[in-house]
């Protein structure tokens, strides 16, 4: 019985892995084989021609890769800094209206991005007019909403709430202020949670799609998550190698962070 079930799970796991494996094997195929129609699993002749063409002749690929790194990097740094400070206040400080404000944070987080699309555009335009700070058609139009999204606050609050109050009270009796408590006690204790936030934010914005095609007009500013589609149509012979290089960072971060995710997301849901 156990054998059968194990096989069953193994088959499911294999099915889940196939799209990734297939993309990797296709990246080692020669051009002729790529253009043969139908699903191809193994390269007839293993070669790295795709990677060679991509790195040597398709320099613009790396420009878009850098766009993605820039967007994701800014959003991660911003969201972690703002998230930790805000989550600390929501979890461990008492102030009037706290629970109501937090409820609004959660409700808004449930909505897809299209809901606030129009007014967002209008606010971006207003900022541009009053402060002459261009947002639309620049990376800021993706970075700013990313930095201020409430997801990180929600995630970190769960962790900070779990830090025993006695620890904080003890520090307070010893004369530590809120700032000191924050830096000396809370920050070191939420490091695993911060890592989870980094990982999930990375995954989310490494795959940014709608925001990019709505707010950006200049194709040169697109992140690779959108531009890869152009490569599919225009440079199909290097598409799979481009795809593999693009998901490798995500897979590395995922493998590093998966352990923390398992330990905590699960628990967060049970609280």
């Amino acid at each position: 019985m156990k054998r059968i079930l194990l096989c069953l799970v193994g088959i499911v796991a294999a099915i889940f892995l196939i799209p990734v494996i297939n993309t990797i094997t296709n990246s080692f195929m020669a051009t002729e084989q790529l253009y043969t129609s139908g699903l191809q699993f193994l390269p007839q002749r293993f070669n790295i021609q795709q990677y060679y063409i991509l790195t040597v002749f398709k320099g613009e690929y790396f420009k878009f890769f850098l766009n993605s790194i820039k967007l994701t990097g800014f959003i991660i740094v911003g969201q972690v800094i703002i998230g930790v400070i805000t989550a600390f206040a929501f979890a461990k400080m008492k102030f009037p209206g706290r629970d109501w404000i937090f409820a609004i944070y959660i409700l808004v987080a449930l909505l897809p991005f299209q809901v606030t699309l129009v007014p967002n555009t209008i606010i971006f335009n207003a900022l541009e007019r009053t402060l002459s700070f261009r947002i639309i058609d620049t990376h800021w139009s993706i970075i700013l909403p990313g930095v201020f999204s409430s997801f990180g606050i929600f995630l970190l609050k769960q962790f900070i709430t779990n830090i025993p109050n006695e620890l904080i009270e003890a520090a307070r009796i010893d004369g530590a202020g809120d700032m000191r408590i924050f830096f000396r006690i809370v920050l070191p204790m939420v490091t695993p949670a911060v890592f989870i936030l980094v990982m999930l934010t990375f995954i989310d914005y490494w795959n940014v799609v709608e925001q990019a095609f709505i707010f950006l007009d200049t194709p040169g500013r697109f992140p690779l998550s959108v531009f890869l589609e152009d490569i599919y149509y225009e440079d199909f012979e290097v598409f799979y190698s481009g795809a593999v290089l693009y998901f490798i960072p995500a897979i590395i971060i995922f493998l590093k962070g998966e352990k923390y995710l398992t330990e905590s997301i699960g628990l967060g849901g049970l609280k």
Partner: protein
Amino acid sequence: MKIKNFKGYFFIMPSLIGFSMLYVIPFLLGLRYSVSRSGFDDTFVGFTNYRNIINSLSFRLALKNNLIFLFAGLTIIIVLSFVLALIIHEINAPKILKLCIVLPIAIPSATVAGYFREVFATGANNLMDSEFAMIGVILIFLWRSTGYNLIIYLAALSQLDKSVIEASEIDGANYLEKLRHVIIPLVTPATFFVSIISIINSFKIYKDLYILQGNYPNPKIYMLQHYMNNKFRDLEYEKLTSAAYLFAIFIFIIALMFYYMDRRYIKKIGEN
């Protein structure tokens, strides 16, 4: 009231300003558009826009598809992830298998679009262009989001109180009875959490659909997000905002429903 009480505001201020400007104020500001004649003429027209979109064919199509997708997708993904988690938990399957099922959450849509195009085109006609395209959408959704739910269920199962399960075994319950009367009720909080996460994840399917089929996909998989994006492109702001509020109300009702079901459940457990 002492000033000390307001100190927390000092900490949340940066976030509060940014979040209000980019999320809360836009959400409220949109109300004005939804009751104006158009984005460029703010004559008050009451609920005309709402009535118009509810009667429009494209909105109805998008709503219908979205409901089919949510209902079918949610049911299947909850059952699938629970069964998988249960098996993995019971037979203590190697960690690598779980990792394979979770991995897809990290894979960018555009990188596997090549594979999905090929695989759905296998056979006589392309699944994504056929009238059964919704099956393809649900398959992609399952592929992408089962892992997340699996983690939640596995954590819930590993935290079950062993003594309750042993007690039921001593009472002579067979596995199915144990499952029905002990395990499933005990993991109910995880099921609520899984449902909420799955609703949020179900919006992310739009990324894959957009990459695969662009702004005007097969009508069978035309969703509310396509509708809203296209209204934005057509500058029909009044329609976009009206649709957005209907969408938001719908989501809030679902969230509230889960919240109260969760509350009632906790109460019930407390009474026993």
